[in-house]
């Protein structure tokens, strides 16, 4: 079994109204030290299967085609290696 987290976040320069709202709310609640907030998605995945290299490649491809929208989002994969 393998696990990975895909972080999908709005590209730099792209307006992120959610982020603005979060930053605003945090500063109202006493954290005016937050200078920027950006809100994205995290997708936690669990895989079975052997061929680690292939899984990695395929996930990278699906990140571009399905999990993120390359026009407005960047993605970043955090591999968690094999577990039990």
């Amino acid at each position, binding site marked *: 079994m393998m696990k990975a987290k895909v972080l999908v976040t709005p590209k730099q320069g792209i307006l992120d*109204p*959610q982020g603005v*709202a*979060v930053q605003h*709310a945090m500063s*109202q*609640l006493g954290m005016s030290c937050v200078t920027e907030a950006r*809100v994205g998605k995290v997708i936690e995945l669990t895989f079975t299967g052997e061929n680690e290299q292939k899984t990695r490649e395929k996930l990278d491809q699906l990140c571009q085609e399905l999990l993120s929208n390359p026009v407005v989002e960047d993605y970043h994969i955090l591999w968690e290696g094999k577990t039990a």
Partner: protein
Amino acid sequence: MKWGIVRFPGSNCDQDLYHVIRYILGQKATYLWHKDTDLQNCDIIALPGGFSYGDYLRCGAIARFSPIMQEVLAHASRGGPIIGICNGFQVLCESQLLPGALIRNRTLHFVCQHVHLLGEGPALKQTKLYVPIAHGEGCYYNSPDGLKKLEYENQILLRYCSPQGTITEEDNPNGSLNNIAAICSPNRRIWGMMPHPERACEAALGSTDGLTLFRCFLQQISTA
């Protein structure tokens, strides 16, 4: 009775509610601005539908911290009556004035349509209603214990049902646990619901069952 309709930035059913209270129920209504800290002697506080603060982050999550909500909390602790509709229900849950949470519809789509509802509890009994819903995050969730408590304390007000009044999974438009569409607080004075009774108070708009709901609410808070 004087109603205070809270206006959060992004509320958009505030005028609809005002219209119904004023012209259909024939009662007094005033708007309460989210930045205010004065409930203007209103007897009933109403949290309308809409997208408070854009519903960014989570529905109702940011609205909960607006200044007027501190007063609404105080009103609640004095036993004051509150009704939250749609986004208002979400705000009540986020504020912990009502238990549970409203999460993304099981279909992942916003859904706007009329639904059949079956009432329960002392106020609504077995009343059958036909009222619209319009939400993207109306799937009611509570922990197993929380659900048990709701059932035990008779806090469930409405469930989604078939036209014949049976509670089936098919007639559950959003995936709510046990088809729950509306609940109330243990003292029965705080009501929260995903359906929009204010959209069903005139025959021209397709149903007048919303009026029944408002009347049951008024009845309940005048007795309890």
